[in-house]
Every structure is written in C-alpha cells, then in structure tokens.
C-alpha cells in the first residue's frame, strides 16, 4: 500500500463563501510522486497552494499534510518545505544563513554541524559558491535553487514548489526541472508543483489535477500525457497549448 502524503477532501478555497475560486476539490498525493497542480492564470493555483500549506484558511473541506492539518500551531518543525515563487529569501541574511535558519530554529546542532549541512544542501542545488553571498547578488534561477535548498533543510518528506520554472529562460527552466526530478528520485521526496509551464508538466509531473476558473472545480485529474486526449475541450486546449474556443 502506498502512503498518502497529502490528502484533500471536498476542499473549497477563495476569499469568501459564494465567491469561491475552486469548490469540492478532492485528490491525494502519494509518497514519492511528483504531483502537479495545474491551471491557467487566475484559476486559483496560488490560492490552492497557500491553503494547502496553511497560509489561508479553507472555506470548506479538509486537508491533511502528512497526517495532520497544515496549520502552524503545532509544536515541532513543519512536516513539509515550501519554495515560494520568487524564492522569498531573507535579504538581511546570506544564502547560507537562509538555509541554516530552519536548522537553527528546530535543531540543537552546533554551528559547525549546521554549516556542514547547509553546504551539503547548497551543493545539492549546485550553489555552494554562493554560501556567503547575499540573495540580492543571485539571479532568478539561483534564488529559486537556494530556496529549494532552504525548503530541504530539515529533510521534510514533502516539498511544495510554487512555479519553479516561471520567469526563467528555457534552458535554466529545464535545469530546474531536472534538479527537481533528481531530488525526488534520489531522496525519495514527494513533490507538489504548482505550475502552468507545459515543459515542466510533460517532463517531470507524474500525476496532476487541472484547476478550472469557469467551472470553479478540478476539471481533470490523471497522468498529463493521457490528458491530451481528454474529452473536455478546455482540458485538451490546456495540454496542447491551443486557444481555440472551448
């Protein structure tokens, strides 16, 4: 039996009842898979992510991340890591200090041990050279990689990535995709990606849900490659990059 890492039941998200972005969303993410939350702009992807990681309260329904609701009232470290779209690195700290922050908060490791772990994490994302640099000196892609390193600091079994390849050139974006796939397979991580980049979706996503603005629901779920032949025209359009009237 495969372990369920994230389980979403009958979830409604948005700002207020009657003005929900998505209603009745139900899906599961299994251990070890790269799961995509897909959708066009303004379909509620980011709000879905913020709700899943406990930054917005759900309007209705329930979420279990690693067997517990995703609020931040629990004692102990959060069971997941998050990479925000622009990285959200702290400007007042160096890249190394950014990655060290969760370790210092949640472990009692001595400074030299923290540094060893931080350097290892940065090596994992090919950014060890930036250890002592402030985040402002990094490019967009480097910031995202540093943020992935920070998300991995406490060895969470699950990480959430918000648009990991948006705003990057195609080559850098492919490198990030490869990095995510490698991390997932080598470390056995479960990865939840929020994205609309077809390149990432078709190369690394194992299973996905497609959020839809018009019907305010999950329009399709399954393996991306199979959804290109979906009976619903809006699903086909999304996966074939077409803008035909649907």
């Amino acid at each position, binding site marked *: 039996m495969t372990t369920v890492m994230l389980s979403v039941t009958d979830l409604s998200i948005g700002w207020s009842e009657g003005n929900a972005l998505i209603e009745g969303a139900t899906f599961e993410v299994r251990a070890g898979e790269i799961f995509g939350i897909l959708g066009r702009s303004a379909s509620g992807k980011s709000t879905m992510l*913020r709700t899943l990681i406990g*930054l917005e309260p759900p309007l209705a329904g329930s979420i279990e991340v690693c067997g517990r609701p995703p609020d931040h009232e629990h004692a102990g470290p959060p069971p997941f890591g*998050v990479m*925000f779209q*622009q990285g*959200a690195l702290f400007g007042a700290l160096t890249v190394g200090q950014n990655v060290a*922050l969760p370790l*210092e908060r949640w472990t009692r490791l001595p400074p030299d041990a923290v540094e060893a772990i931080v350097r290892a994490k940065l090596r994992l994302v090919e950014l060890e050279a930036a250890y002592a640099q402030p985040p402002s000196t990094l490019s967009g892609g480097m910031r995202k990689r540093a943020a992935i390193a920070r998300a991995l600091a406490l060895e969470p079994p699950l990480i959430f990535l918000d648009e990991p390849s948006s705003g990057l050139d195609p080559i850098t974006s492919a490198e990030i995709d490869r990095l995510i796939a490698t991390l997932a397979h080598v470390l056995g991580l479960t990865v939840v990606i929020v994205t609309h980049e077809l390149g990432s979706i078709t190369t690394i996503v194992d299973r996905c849900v497609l959020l839809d603005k018009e019907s305010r629901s999950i329009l399709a779920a399954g393996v991306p490659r199979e959804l290109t032949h979906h009976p619903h025209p809006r699903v086909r359009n999304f996966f074939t990059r077409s803008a035909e009237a649907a």
Partner: protein
Amino acid sequence: MHHRRGVSGWRIARDGERIVIDGELRIHDGAEIWRELSLAAASPGPRLDFDIAGARVVDGGVMALLVERRAILLRRGVASEILGASEGLQSVVHLLHGDEAPPHVEVQRELGFVERVGVETAKLGTRVQTGVVFLGELVASVAGIVRHPARTDRRGLPALVVRAGLDGLPIVVLLNFLVGFVMAFQSMRYLQLYGASPFVADIVGISVTRELAPLMTAVIITGRSGAAYAAELGTMRVSEEIDALQVMGIRPVSYLVVPRILALLLVAPALTLFADLVGIAGGLVVGVRGLGLTPRGYLSELRTVIVPGDVWTGLVKSGVFGVAIAIIGCRNGLATSGSASEVGRATTATVVQSLFAIVLLDTLLTMLFRGVGQ
C-alpha cells in the same frame, strides 16, 4: 442635417436614418469626431445607422468611438448598425464587438451614508481584531523569551541597536543641542529683565531632561527607525518572506518584532541621555555667551535644581516611546498586503500613529510622574 469637415479631411453628416462618415478619421481628431458624432446622433428615430462606406481610413481609436456611440443608441432602444465597412474595416468592427449587442453595463451604485458608515465600521472591527491578535502574539512571544531566555535568538539584536542607536546619534546630538540653545535664547530677554540670568540653567535643565530630550529623540526615532521597520516588514510581506517564516514554523512576531522592540527599548533611553547632555550644553552656550555666566556658575546652578528623578523620569518616558514606536512600525509593516503602494501607506501610517502615540503617552506619563523629583 449637421455636418462638418475636419482638418485632415473627414466629414460626419446626418442624413435621415443614417450618419454618413467619410474621409480619413484618426484619433488625433478624436475629441472633435466624438463631439460631431454626439451632435449627429441627437434626437434619433427608431433607427440610426453609421455609414462608413466613404471612409478611407478609420483607425482603431475612432472605431472604438463609433462602436461606443452605437452601443449608446442600442441601449436607448434605437436600432443601429455600422454599415458599408470594407473587409479590412469590418474585421476591426468585429474585433471591437461593434457587430453584436452591447454588453450589459453594470452601473456601480454609490454607497449611501448609512452603508458607508457600516462598511467603515466593519473595516475598523477587522483592524481592531487583527490588532488584538498581534498584541496577543506579542505577549506570547515575550512570555516565551522570559521563560526560556537561553533559547532566544539574539544575533540580530546588535545590528538593530547599531542602526537605530549609533547611526542616529549625530542627528540626535545636533537637534537636541539646538533645542537647548533655542530654549535658553528665547528666555534670555526676560531673565535679563528680572536680573535672573542664572535661572537659565533651571529652565533648560528641567525642560530638557523631563520633556524635550525624550520627546525630540522619540520624534527622530519615529522618522528613522519606526518608518524603516514598517517599510522593511511590509516589503518582506510583499515578497512572501513573512509567509516563508511561517511555513518554516518560525513566528514572525518572535523573530522580527521582538528584537526590534528590544532594540528601541535599549536605544531610546541611551540616545535620550546624550540628548540631555547636549541640550544642557546648548543652554550653557547661551548662558556664557549671552548672559555672561561662567560655565562653572551655570553648572552649579544646574546641580542645585536637577535631581536624579528628573533624569530617570525622562529616560523611562523615552523607553516607553521606543517600545510604542517599534510596536506601531512592526504592526503596520506586518499588516501590509500585496503591493508596493501598501508599503508606502504603512510607512506613512507608522509616522502619524507614532507621533500621536508619543504625545498621548507623554501626557499620561507626565501626569503619572508629577510628584517625582519636585
């Protein structure tokens, strides 16, 4: 019938159930074209079409005006079409939806007085609620620090103290010197009149230590540190850094707000002590130069009148001001949502609210300390 020829050779004329438009219509004549269209479309019958068969050029802007004019007619129940368009122009008409029924325009009704009061009250309620939550978190964080002082992360504190304190010292010194100087200067004439020159030390000493040094220092800290805290935390909110802290299980209030409160709690009294000294020095300059006192005379008069209570009530005041400024700045910063303009708003609100709070607290504390040292 109404018609008119524009400078670049266009003409709009009413001909019964048609408005005939020809020539070259470009948006730089837009204002006149719009006026002519309105005049030509006045008092329509059951039908009024726009005939653009004779128009050689109708650019996108003018076509948008035509489409809007037609939509206005349709909404008034007048049948109207744009006729005679060449193939190229017809595609522009289509692009601007000039060949279909106009969309229903929802007119936003202005809120009445009672509704506005309701909306504002609800907003105030939310603000009070989030403020209470913030204060609750603050108390919980401070309690955590008191319970486990060893586990508190104090590494950020020295940098904050240096930035608020050491970097602010020159301006605090300069302004408070000038305040002491001006106080003495203003009272000089009357003191000379009554032959009470040595009392310049009393006036400057008491007013600077008890009132002016804490107040001026707090005003400077508001401008330098309070506004900076709001902008800093606001920007962190906008760039999702606060969210990142939260999902790492780090409370933003403990990590960001408490060190800033501690920093100003330490820095404000320290700066005020400097302010006391230079304020008194400002009075000394006037006393020696303007009133013919000796420095020794000024200082010995000062010693007879100033008691420790004057100084420490001023220092306590400034500590309270420092804490208030830090809380207001951080609260406004964390309450920012969304955009760069919100960060600006948070900064402005911080300065205004801090100055208000400082004067209010000053009044209360002055009442509280009225028996001390006198």
